[in-house]
């Protein structure tokens, strides 16, 4: 063979091999995948960016496949947010001209992934004055809005595209006379304990059913005895050997460190919401960085749990390397909900807002409640705001009050927090101003807002003008 043809052959073979590696990385996954990303993902999705199939569930799927993927994770929250621009509002043919300008029936029209250079707050990839595409004449209907820049609709604390539960006009005028601090400033309390399906008798030291070798851990046994678990009849095997009934003895089926799946047996809602938020989203069902394939060359590789060093927010160095699960915050055996509400968070989170919490008015209230000088529910922990207790409808259509472990649920835009959290203690005007003051948020609400959101004043003025006109 001549040198030229050898070179050609070499070129062909290496090109084919390269293509095969890339294709395998795309389809099956593995180490190559990280280098195949077509652009930095948003902070909403970066944790699961290597589980390509989470969104690209079919290799050649177009818009429909992506839309279905968005809705798989986000449909429920949009419904709960009483989405003011749901796709179904736009399907009527009378909106054809609007859809030609902006296809509001598709999430990716506004939220394109892998486009860091055009991604704004909330993962919006349109120019931020997009409201003008449909509402450019708002100034004629509402003189107060004449001349306002269209990139301020959503950035000044007045409107959101999806969630306006605390921002609509009648709500604003109804809360005109709210005091800054409500006379009974109490956060929603735990009203129901997570009762096991069948009631069992409380357990004592002699009842512990761990194998003898394990019972040597006196601290673990003492911690367990003090918990609701022991009181509710949940024995060692309840968590460490959940398949006990199917085995002759606990040893062979003993799980040293039970994971969220075991906790979910009783705490289904908590684990479900944990897997929806930033702490547990990598553990959500069916996310894998590698799929079994190519004759066993690729193995199924579910995403590993989140670790603090992978976060985009500042995290404390000491926390690096730690896999996030239920026990990260709740501790094993002790399951102390109090520790989980502040210390659990500050063990990792080292950003300005988190660090400023210590010593803030909210923290002082928390300390007072812990010390017994403040009434129950008057303390404000990290979890009070970021994992609030909420009424959750059970299978019988009745509400139970449970902690929402999806810390993201009311986080952005921050007005999502108004009704689920702030309104327990604060009036609407005070809340709107405080949330709109970025420096105050960074200081963890030490001090007063220096920003004034006009919504309530304008809504009230409009109402008064309308009343005068009809008299």
């Amino acid at each position: 063979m001549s040198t030229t043809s050898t070179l050609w052959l070499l070129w062909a073979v290496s090109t084919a091999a390269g293509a095969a590696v890339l294709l395998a990385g795309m389809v099956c996954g593995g180490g190559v995948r990280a280098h195949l990303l077509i652009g930095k993902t948003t902070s909403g999705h970066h944790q699961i960016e290597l589980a390509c199939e989470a969104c690209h569930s079919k290799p050649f799927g177009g818009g429909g496949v992506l839309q279905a993927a968005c809705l798989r994770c986000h449909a429920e929250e949009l419904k709960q947010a009483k989405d003011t621009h749901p796709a179904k509002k736009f399907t009527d043919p009378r909106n054809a001209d609007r859809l030609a300008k902006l296809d509001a029936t598709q999430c990716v029209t506004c939220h394109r992934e892998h486009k860091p250079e055009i991604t704004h707050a909330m993962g919006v990839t349109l120019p931020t004055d997009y409201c003008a595409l449909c509402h450019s004449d708002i100034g004629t209907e509402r003189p107060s809005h004449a001349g306002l820049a269209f990139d301020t609709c959503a950035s000044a604390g007045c409107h959101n595209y999806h969630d306006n539960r605390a921002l609509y006009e009648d709500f604003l005028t109804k809360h005109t006379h709210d005091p800054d601090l409500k006379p009974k400033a109490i956060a929603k309390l735990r009203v129901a304990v997570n009762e096991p399906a069948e009631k069992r008798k409380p357990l004592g030291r002699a009842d512990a059913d761990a194998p003898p070798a394990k019972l040597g851990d006196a601290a673990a046994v003492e911690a367990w005895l003090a918990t609701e678990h022991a009181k509710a009849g949940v024995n060692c095997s309840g968590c460490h050997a959940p398949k006990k009934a199917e085995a002759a003895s606990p040893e062979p089926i003993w799980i040293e460190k039970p994971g969220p799946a075991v906790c979910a047996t009783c705490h289904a809602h908590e684990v479900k919401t944990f897997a929806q938020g930033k702490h547990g989203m990598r553990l959500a069902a069916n996310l894998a960085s590698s799929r079994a394939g190519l004759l066993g060359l690729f193995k199924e590789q579910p995403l590993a749990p989140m670790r603090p060093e992978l976060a985009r927010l500042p995290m404390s160095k000491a926390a690096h390397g730690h896999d996030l699960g239920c026990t990260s915050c709740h501790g094993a055996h002790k399951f102390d909900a109090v520790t989980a509400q502040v210390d659990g968070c500050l063990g990792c989170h080292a950003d300005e807002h988190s660090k400023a919490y210590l010593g803030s008015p909210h923290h002082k209230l928390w300390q007072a409640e812990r010390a017994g000088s403040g009434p129950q529910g008057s303390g404000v922990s990290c979890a009070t705001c970021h994992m609030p207790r909420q009424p959750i409808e059970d299978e019988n259509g009745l509400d139970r009050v449970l902690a929402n472990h999806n810390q993201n649920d009311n986080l952005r835009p921050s007005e999502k927090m108004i009704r689920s959290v702030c309104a327990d203690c604060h009036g609407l005007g005070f809340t709107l101003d405080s949330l709109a003051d970025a420096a105050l948020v960074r200081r963890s609400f030490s001090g007063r807002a220096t920003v004034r959101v006009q919504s309530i004043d304008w809504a009230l003025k409009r109402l008064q003008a309308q009343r005068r006109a009809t008299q």
Partner: protein
Amino acid sequence: MPSMPSLSSKPAKPLTLACAAGAMVLLTGAKGLEPKDVADMLHAVMSADRTVYTKQVVNRLTLKEKVITASEHFEDNKALPLPAQMFRFGAELAAEQSKKFSYSLLSLWPVNKQNAPRTDAEKKGLEFVAANKGQNFYTEEKLGNQRYFTAVYADTAVAQACVTCHNDHKDSPRRDFKMNDVLGGVVIRIPITE
């Protein structure tokens, strides 16, 4: 009026809404039904349901027995959904199930500015039904790349509740409505081939 193209007689998806179900029987059963007939039938069911809800639920409970109010923020205010909301929720649900027709409730004097006419046909139709009591308006229009048979029917104040609420609502641009006045119109669209 232009000649009516006839509808295809492919069986429709099963529909749960009473009005849509009624139409389906006819769509699948009778060949060569004109879009105008289908629109008239759809409207008969819509308007009957709307009148029943307004008279038997809203008017009775809010004005006569005074046990509850009706409000657009019915969840927050623990109130009854407005007749217009009942109508729109139904239209949205029907649209999820069938692309064979769509409908909306509009007005020249809209409380909700999104309910103002947006197409020429809507504007002409609303003006026509307001000026010609008892008559409907039929036309064709092209929206996007699709032609539609478009019918507009008067929406009249069939109960005192309609009048009271529209005259008193803070966002209402007109406050001199009386019983049996035309408050707006129902627009029904059926996609047709050219």
